[in-house]
């Protein structure tokens, strides 16, 4: 019996080593990195990493934590690899950095344009301590460091950026949070190219802030080709990505109803179907979009009860949607970057054909013929039917 107990005890002690990555770390010995910025320093040919961390002391001491603002701390470090920079940063950190709560990765403009994006994401997949489902953004016309240095009045900078991405993709449908694992998938696939949202720094117009205060704003979706940023889809053009990826949750379209007056239509759901086939060396892309929506604001006095008026609105909205998609595709064709993944669709639908064109798909895509069919149905006029009878 004693012998048995001893054996069990020894075996049990061995299990401690099987655990492998035991990483006992007290919360007060760790600094939690919320956002990572990756810049390329041309002169030194090095990466500059910006760490935007949660300030550990901002809520300390008080029993009732969680009040309002959470402080942030910014560190930078350089290195030939991202990991090297992270190790270099330990000269500046008083605590062990913890990457498990990284919420955003910002890529500097220079890095995206001049250097390749192909390599920098490896560490996110390889390292166990960081996640691969973090949304990435490109600092448009500025560096990642600048973007992360903007400290909003009420929130942590990373929470603020994250909130903007989420909000915009949900409410407006012009920005999509492309996560790192998706970018890696798209970078490695020959039939599709990634798009990464852009963020730029503007001067705040908020009167409660001192003049000259900076603020971040999402701007467009960056078109990536072979790992490099080649152009931007701006404004309504970027809606094409969400429409074609079936990611559109809500957006609105302004329909002209005479003169400078517009009616707003809210698109509540949309579903697209894409068919790609080759016709004498040219891809023919057929897009069907079925969308539903409601009228949510009328600035003109039209009899919306009448079928003709309703039908006219439906047709105009459908036309708008088709135009957004067409514009987006045209821009992509111009950059010769298949950001919509038509290549992948061809691959799935006609694998034999795909093999013939795979190697020169970019050029083939640029010559593609696109036909867009949008079927839009208005299924409501919100709380009112006719506008109030103004004089």
């Amino acid at each position: 019996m004693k012998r048995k107990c001893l054996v069990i005890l020894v075996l049990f002690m061995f299990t401690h080593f099987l655990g492998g990555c035991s990483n006992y770390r007290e919360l007060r010995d760790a600094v939690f990195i919320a956002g990572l910025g990756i810049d390329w320093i041309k002169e030194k040919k090095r990466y500059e990493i910006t760490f935007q961390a949660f300030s550990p002391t901002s809520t300390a001491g008080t029993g009732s934590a969680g009040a309002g603002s959470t402080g942030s701390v910014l560190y930078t470090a350089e290195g030939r690899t991202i990991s090297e920079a992270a190790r270099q940063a330990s000269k500046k950190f008083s605590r062990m950095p913890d990457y498990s709560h990284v919420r955003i990765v910002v890529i500097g403009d220079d890095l995206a344009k001049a250097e390749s994006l192909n390599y920098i994401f490896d560490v996110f997949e390889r390292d166990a301590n960081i996640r691969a489902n973090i949304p990435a953004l490109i600092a448009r016309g500025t560096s990642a460091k600048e973007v992360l240095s903007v400290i909003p009045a009420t929130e942590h900078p990373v929470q603020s950026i994250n909130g903007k991405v989420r909000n915009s993709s949900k409410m407006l449908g012009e920005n999509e949070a492309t996560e790192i694992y998706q970018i890696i998938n798209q970078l490695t696939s020959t039939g599709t190219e990634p798009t990464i949202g852009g963020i730029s720094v503007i001067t705040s117009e908020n009167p409660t802030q001192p003049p000259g205060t900076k603020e971040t704003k999402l701007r467009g979706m960056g078109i990536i080709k072979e790992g490099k940023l080649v152009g931007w889809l701006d404004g309504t053009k970027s809606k094409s990505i969400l429409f074609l990826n079936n990611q559109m949750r809500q957006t609105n379209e302004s329909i002209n109803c005479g003169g400078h007056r517009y009616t707003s239509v809210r698109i509540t759901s949309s579903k697209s179907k894409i068919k790609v086939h080759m016709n004498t060396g040219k891809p023919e892309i057929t897009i069907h979009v079925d969308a539903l929506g409601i009228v949510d604001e009328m600035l003109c006095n039209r009899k919306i009860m009448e079928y003709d008026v309703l039908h006219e609105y439906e047709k105009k909205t459908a036309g708008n949607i088709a135009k957004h998609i067409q514009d987006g595709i045209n821009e992509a064709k111009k950059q010769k970057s298949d950001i919509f993944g038509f290549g992948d669709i061809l691959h799935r639908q006609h694998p034999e054909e795909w093999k013939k064109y795979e190697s020169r798909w970019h050029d083939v895509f640029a010559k593609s013929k696109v036909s867009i069919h949008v079927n839009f149905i208005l299924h409501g006029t919100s709380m009112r039917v006719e506008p109030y009878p103004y004089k």
Partner: protein
Amino acid sequence: MPSFFKNKKTKTQTTIDSSSSKPSNGKQDETTLTFEIDKNVQLIKDCMGNPPDLNVRKIIIDASSDFSIAMIRMDGMSDKKEVDFSVIEPLSKLNFQELREQLDNPNSAEVLGRLIAVNKLEKMNNLEKVVKSILQGNTAILFSHTQQIFLASTRLIDKRGLSEPTSQTVIRGPKDSFTEDLRTNTSLVRARITNPKLRIETLNAGEITHTNIELMYLKGIANDSILQEVRSRIKKIKIDAILESSYIEEFIQDSKNSIFPTLISTERPDVVVANLLEGRFAIFVYGTPYVLIGPATFIQFFQSPEDYYQNYYMGSFIRILRFVAFFIALYIPGLYVAIMTHHHALIPTTLLITLAGQREGVPFPIVVEALIMELVFEVLREAGVRMPRAVGQTVSIVGALILGQAAVEAGFVSASTVIVVSLTAIANFTMPFFNVAIAARILRFFLLLLGSFIGMYGILLGTFMILAHLCSLRSFGLPYFDPITPFKLLEQKDVFIRLPLPKQRTRPQPARPEQKFRVKRGGSQNET
């Protein structure tokens, strides 16, 4: 006992137990009793060391022929009134000539029995037995010129009345509970099962205390082989004293080193009745209101009698809640420490920031902090039990205010640890049987340490060890984790949820009852 006089006559007629009174055994070898009454009295006195509570009353019936009667009883153990009116009075009025004749008669006990109006009259001539009988509260009646001693059962011990259960309370359901008196306890069960199949067997244990133990079961439902095993296990107990049923429990349980209880102890008669009907046995021990029930399964410790008295939706909900509470009581401190020290990625970011802020000013590692708070709570709890009632208020004030709030404000511990510890403490009190809560209380520390060493991996390791142990346990040879392992689908009707009683037609099988059905075919109103 005012009713005593009314029933005087019927009692004398019906309850004289002459058959069980032992006929004088022919050997008379060890007997040291003499034919002289004074010597016999002295013998008995000496045997007990002439204690002050030994009451000797001597009546001289006929001085000329030196005929006298002596009555010896223990004061406080016997009914004084009964001795006065049923023993002394009839004897003192007796014609001594007649009496002398009768005493020589071999059926003297029967003859005397007609006179002495007590429950039971026995004839003995063995000093040791007489002394033992006196110590049990009986009155010894000695006559001159005879070796025979008559023992009238006059036992009456002060006992407290029935009261509400203190540790196993319910909202709806019977409010009576067992007392220290064995006979009261068995009567509470008998009153609920008026069936001749309810059997009680007397067993004794305690070399010095000679404590009365009674084994109760329902014949035809309880499994005979299990009963056989229980009898033999109780007979094997060789200990000087049995002060509580836990003494028996420790001797007869299958696994003597397990932290989990393998016998149920309850102070509720309805629990005993329900278990007897499921084919289990109950062991009553004199001097304790806690009755043992076996064989037990782990699931039974989560079954409160109230589950069956309330609507079955509620019963099932509360039972699931109880399992969750057990899980909380067992795991939360361990998980808390594991996640806070090893798995920061598992905490939602906003919560992490809050927690990190709280931890900022705290001097100790989180394990130490959690251990301190857990131990402090255990101390508070123990103090609460031992503390005199009058100062009971102090504990709650000291515990809640000083330790809870001030410790956080002073930066000794973080607020989150206090929350975790108090959640654990509260969850621990949801167990209907507190001995399974004790297991959770101790294993919690084990899991806490494992979690702090190797994080979630340790918690999982601990879980496997506990589960393996639970599955290996046996209660009277029957699997403790029945019916989860070995899994029986039909037995799940009363495990995590409680099905309506008409649907639970078969008796639960863990105790291997001899009778299968408890709701007769057509006995449920729902079936047509």
